[in-house]
């Protein structure tokens, strides 16, 4: 009898603990963004919406872009409505950022590297509609980028195109597609090139990818990590990188050390943006969040994107920065059946990327 009682007590305590942690979880998740939520509440009551805060959860290489853009938008919004807006930025690996939104960070807008990551927020937590990508123009991607090569000055290994990367004795640096959004674009770009070259012969494409990845010396977990490995550690002959990341390295470390090589074919990387519906409705920030993302499409927003080495959608602005962005054939992820499909065939466990390392 006594034993039974004790057992009951034990389970009682355990369930109590579970309850406690459940409450704690909710509390902490709201705490993380309490900075803006809390301030919102006070301002709503006392100052009648004079100031508003937005949280933009983004990925790594957009740090410089949004620093500049946020200032411009704040000025624009103040002029238009008289309201002060402060925007908090959060940066990190695209997948990790999406996970923190899924786990409860109250982001008003997300600006990530892959549509797949935003899809995941829509699918697992229903924080936004599944057809979120139709909300803004151009697949909700106000700026695009592509994948290029960064080589050492003078291009000593004479790297011109993707098939040079599969040659013996070339050392390639690229991040791991399993952990990095950018690396997935790299992988698909190489695949698209091989697909053209071999007329879609899958066995030959896979061999091409195998040759390419057997030349990879270090698989960093993120795009910035790969850049560091190539630029600062001096490892590798070629870095497969975001175009904006490559330009940034050139700007930071000087053009006398590195060169950008544009391959004949690459992929049109469309980093998407989206409003997190449920959260802006809860916080009452929909109006400003919408204006924020729309402003990315404005002339000024496009200009800032171009200045930060993202390809603008606006033809006029693109024309102005024509010398910066070389013309090349660009395939889109639609060629792979969209991100859900591409993820399944190439990057999920047992996909083509795993086959390479079997």
């Amino acid at each position, binding site marked *: 009898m006594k034993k039974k009682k004790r057992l009951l007590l034990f389970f009682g305590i355990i369930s109590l603990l579970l309850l406690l942690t459940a409450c704690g979880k909710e509390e902490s998740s709201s705490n993380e963004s309490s900075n803006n939520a809390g301030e919102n509440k006070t301002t709503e009551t006392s100052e009648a919406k004079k100031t508003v805060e937005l949280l933009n959860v983004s990925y790594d290489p957009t740090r410089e872009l949004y620093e500049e853009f946020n200032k411009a938008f704040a000025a624009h919004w103040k002029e238009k409505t008289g309201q002060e807006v402060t925007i908090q930025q959060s940066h990190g690996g695209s997948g990790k950022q999406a996970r923190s939104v899924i786990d409860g960070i109250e982001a008003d807008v997300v600006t990530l590297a892959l549509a797949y990551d935003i899809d995941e927020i829509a699918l697992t937590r229903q924080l936004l509609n599944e057809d979120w990508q139709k909300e803004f123009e151009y697949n909700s991607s106000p700026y695009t980028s592509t994948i290029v090569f960064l080589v050492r000055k003078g291009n000593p290994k004479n790297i011109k195109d993707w098939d040079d990367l599969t040659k013996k004795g070339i050392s390639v640096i690229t991040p791991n597609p399993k952990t990095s959004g950018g690396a997935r674009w790299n992988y698909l770009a190489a695949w698209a090139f091989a697909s053209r070259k071999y007329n879609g012969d899958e066995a030959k494409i896979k061999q091409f990818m195998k040759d390419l990845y057997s030349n990879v010396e270090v698989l960093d977990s993120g795009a910035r990590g790969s850049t560091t490995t190539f630029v600062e550690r001096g490892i590798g002959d070629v870095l497969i990188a975001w175009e904006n990341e490559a330009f940034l390295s050139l700007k930071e470390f000087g053009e006398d050390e590195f060169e950008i090589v544009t391959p004949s074919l690459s992929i049109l990387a469309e980093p998407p943006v989206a409003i997190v519906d449920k959260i802006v409705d809860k916080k009452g920030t929909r109006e400003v969040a919408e204006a924020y993302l729309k402003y990315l499409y404005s002339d000024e927003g496009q200009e800032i994107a171009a200045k930060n080495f993202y390809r603008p959608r606006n033809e006029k602005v693109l024309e102005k920065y024509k010398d910066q962005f070389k013309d090349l054939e660009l395939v889109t992820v639609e060629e792979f059946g969209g991100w859900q499909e591409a993820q399944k065939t190439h990057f*999920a466990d047992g996909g083509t990327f795993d086959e390479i390392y079997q």
Partner: protein
Amino acid sequence: MEFTLKRKKKNTIIPGFSLTLGYAMLYLSIIVLLPLAMIVVNTLSLSWSEFIGIITHPRAVASYKLSFGSAFIAGLINVLFGTIIAWVLIRYDFPGKKIIDGLVDLPFALPTAVAGIALTTLYAPNGWIGQFFDFKISYTPLGIVIALTFIGLPFVVRTVQPILQNLSREVEEASASLGANRFQTLVKVILPELYPAMITGFSLAFSRALGEYGSVVFIAGNMPMKTEITPLIIMTKLEQYDYVGATAIAVVMLVGSFVALLIINFIQWRINRKFNY
């Protein structure tokens, strides 16, 4: 075998046993047991064959070998050199001793990512140390061992130090006066006293190294089948929203390290018996 609470209360002189035990259990449950239970609960949604499929994937298996192997080697290196460092710090006096003593703790305090980046820079082919070697150190298993040795060092030094401190010189003098040479004294008198502490230090350093992520991920190179550590496999699964797969691998780590610690404890028990403590 009926123990009632009343009798226990009578038996102990110090009051508050049930209160403190209750507190200890509650605290341990919230801080340790619940999180660990969550890992297991998460994996329960897998069927047995799925679970086996995930944990026996060739890449996962290669990573276990690497993680357990390099943690083991790093632990051994630390036991050897950590004991020497503790010896020097206890037995000799020299200027700057306090500073060196303080330096030992640095790996504890340093954020592991900083350690990882610093080590990678040093041992990269163009780094200060790396340039003197013909072979690569960063981005190889050797680099991983170096990082794991770095973060594990304080554990051995700090467990061996107090034992050495309390070792009385008289015993050594006695062994010397009985005709033992320095080596015999070391092996037959001093080391047996130190074994338990060395093994504890080893197991601490080993288990710390096993789960290490921050410092290793930079120096490892992360090549599948070659330099991919198990914590990275877990991260890649999380990055693909595969929470269940990630926890499945985590369970393997948990069970593996538990078994390893069990074996170490068993060895310690045997040694204790052999030397009659």
